C-alpha cells in the first residue's frame, strides 16, 4: 500500500513525458482516464510535474487530482515492472492525444 514519492535509489525502468494540452488542466475527467489506463498495467506507475519528481502513484485518482496539474504543464511518467515501457508510452500517448477516446475501452 505504499504509494507516493519514489524511494531514493530506485532506478526507473522506463520514462516518458508529455505536455498537457487539456483545457483547464488535469481535471476530473482526464484524471480518471489517466488512472484507469495506468491501472491496466501490472507495473507500478508514477507521475510527476518535474523531471526529478516528487513522484505520485499514477493509479490513485486522489493523488493524481491532488497534483493540480495546470494546462500546458509537462507530465513525467516512470514505470517499473514487466510492462513498464508499454505503460509509459501509453500514458504519454493518452496525454498527447488530449485524452481522446481511442477504442481501448476508456
Amino acid at each position, binding site marked *: *500500500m505504499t*504509494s507516493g514519492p519514489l524511494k531514493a535509489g530506485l532506478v526507473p525502468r522506463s520514462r516518458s513525458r508529455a*505536455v498537457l*494540452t487539456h*483545457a*483547464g*488542466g488535469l*481535471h*476530473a*475527467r482526464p484524471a*480518471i482516464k489517466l*488512472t*484507469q489506463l495506468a491501472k491496466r498495467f501490472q507495473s507500478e506507475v508514477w507521475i510527476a510535474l518535474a523531471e526529478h519528481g516528487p513522484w505520485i*502513484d499514477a493509479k*490513485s*485518482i*486522489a*493523488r493524481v*487530482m*491532488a497534483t*493540480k496539474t*495546470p*494546462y*500546458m504543464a509537462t507530465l513525467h511518467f516512470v514505470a517499473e515492472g514487466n510492462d513498464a515501457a508499454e505503460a509509459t508510452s501509453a500514458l504519454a500517448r493518452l496525454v498527447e492525444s*488530449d485524452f481522446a477516446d481511442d477504442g481501448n475501452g476508456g
Partner: protein
Amino acid sequence: MEGDTAAVVCLRGTPVSAGLARGRLVVLADDDPPPSRERGSVAEESSRMQAAIASASAELAALTERVGEAEAQAILAFQVAMLADRVVTEPAFAAIEAGVAAEQGWRTAMDLQIREYHEADDLYFRARASDLRDMRDRVLHTLRGVDATAIAPGSIVVAADLPPSRFLEIAWDGGGVALTQGSPNSHVAMLARSRGVPMLIGLEQADLRGHTEALIDTDNAILVVSPDGKLAVDFASRQQRAGIARAEAERYLNAPAVTASGERVQLLINVADGSELDRLDPACCDGIGLVRTELMLRNAADLADEEKQYQAYCRIVRWADRRPVTIRTLDAGGDKPISGYTVDGEANPFLGVRGLRLSLRHPDVLTTQLRALARAASRGLLKVMVPMVTSPRELDRARVLLDSAVAGLCKERVEYAVPELGMMVEVPAAALAIDLFDADFFSIGSNDLIQYLTASSRDSRGLSPLHDPLQPAVLRLIHEVVRHANAHRVPVSLCGDMASDVRCIPALLDVGLRSLSVAPASVARVKSAIARHRVATPTELPLA
C-alpha cells in the same frame, strides 16, 4: 392557496444560473442527526463500511446510466473513481481499526480530504469539495439505511449545499434551487446552467418553516417565499416573456447571423486560453475573433517555448475547422502581469509599457510567438493581431519581425504559412489616425478604447456612468474607423464587451460594422438582437 397565507419573505442571493422559477418549496435539512446504535466489533464495522461503499458505488453507477449528458456522467464517474481508490477509503478503515464506528470513521476520513480541496487556491479544485461531500453523504446514508427524501418535480429547493448526484436525481421541470452556501464554479452550478435550472447561491438565512411555495427570480437576485397574488401574477407574465425570448434566442444559436434587413453579419467568438472550446460547437460561430494569448502563456518559460505555443495554437485552429482564427500576440502588462516579463512598479500600468510596446522591447519573445503562429498558420486560416498599437511605426516594426520570423522558418525548411497581420484599435491616437496604419485588418477593442477616450479607469466603480459605450464620443470614433476601413476594403471587427451587449448591437450595425466578436455565452442573444435590427440607411444615422 391555503386560507391562512404566510407572510411574504424575500431573501437575497447571488445568481449563478439565470432564470425564473416558481414551485413548491422544499427545504432540505442540513444534516440528519446520527441515529444511536451500538457499535459492532472492528470486523463488523469494517464489513459494514465495505458494504456501504460498494452499494454507494452501485447507486452512482446506476445513476450514471440514467443521466444522458456526458458532463453529468463525468461528475458521477469522478465519485465512482474516488470510491474505488484505496488512498481515499483507507483512512476510514484505519479509523475503524482504531476503534470507531463506520459512520464516524468515514466522516472523519472524508472531512479531512474535503478540507484539502476546500482550501485549494484553484477555484476548480475548491469546487470539487462539494463532489466529495456528495460522496461522503451518499455513503453515510447507505450506512444508516436511509433513503434520500423524494422531491416532487418542479420544486424550489432550498438547502445549504446541493450535491451534484442529488441534483441529478431531481426532476427539475421548471423548478429552481437556492443555496445558502455554494460556489459559482461548483459542479452543481455548472449542471444548473447547462440544464437551465435557475439557481442562487449565498442565500440569506431564514427560518422557512410553514411556507409551502416560493419563486426564484435571478433578474432581481431574490428568492421570494409565499409570494402574494400580485407578485405571482406579475412573475407569471415575466416568466412567459422570458420563455418566449429564450426559445427565440436558441433558434438563432446555430444559424448564421443576419439582420432584419437581410445583411449577413460575421459573428466570431472571443477565447481566453482555449479551455472553453471543449464545450462549444464550432457551428455556432463564423470563427474566432480574438484569442488572448496572455491568458495561455503564464510564465517566462512558456514565452520561450515555441513548440508548446505551436501545439496550443494548432489545437485552436483544429477546433475552428477551417473557420478563421485571429490570435492576438501577448497583451501583457496593465492588469495582466507575467512575472519575469512585465515591468514592475509602474505608477500607471494601463498607460505604461504593455501590449505591443512591451513586445517590441523583447523582440526575442515576440519572435518566438510569431514563429509558432506562422507554423500554426499552415494548419488553417490563422491571422495575427497586435495589441495596443499607438503609432504606425510600431505596427511596421511588428511586420518586420514577422517577416524575419517567416524568413527564418523558410530557411530551416519548417512548414509555415504567412499569416495576415492586423491590429487592435484601442488607443484613441490610432483610431483618430487610422488611415496611417498599414494593417491587413482592424479589430476595435472597445473596453480599452472607452477607458482611454474617457480618461476613466475601468476598475473605478464610481466612474461607470462615464463608460457608457453608447455615448456620442465613442460611437463617433468607432464610426470613423469603420468608415475608413469599409472605404478601403480593410476588414474591420469589434471584439470588446460592447459586441456582447445586446443594447449596443443596433448602434454597431448602424455605424457599418458587419463583423463582431463576442463572448461564447452571448452568441445566441447577439444573433437574435442582430436578427431584430433593421439597419439604418446612412441618412437615418444620428451621427452623420
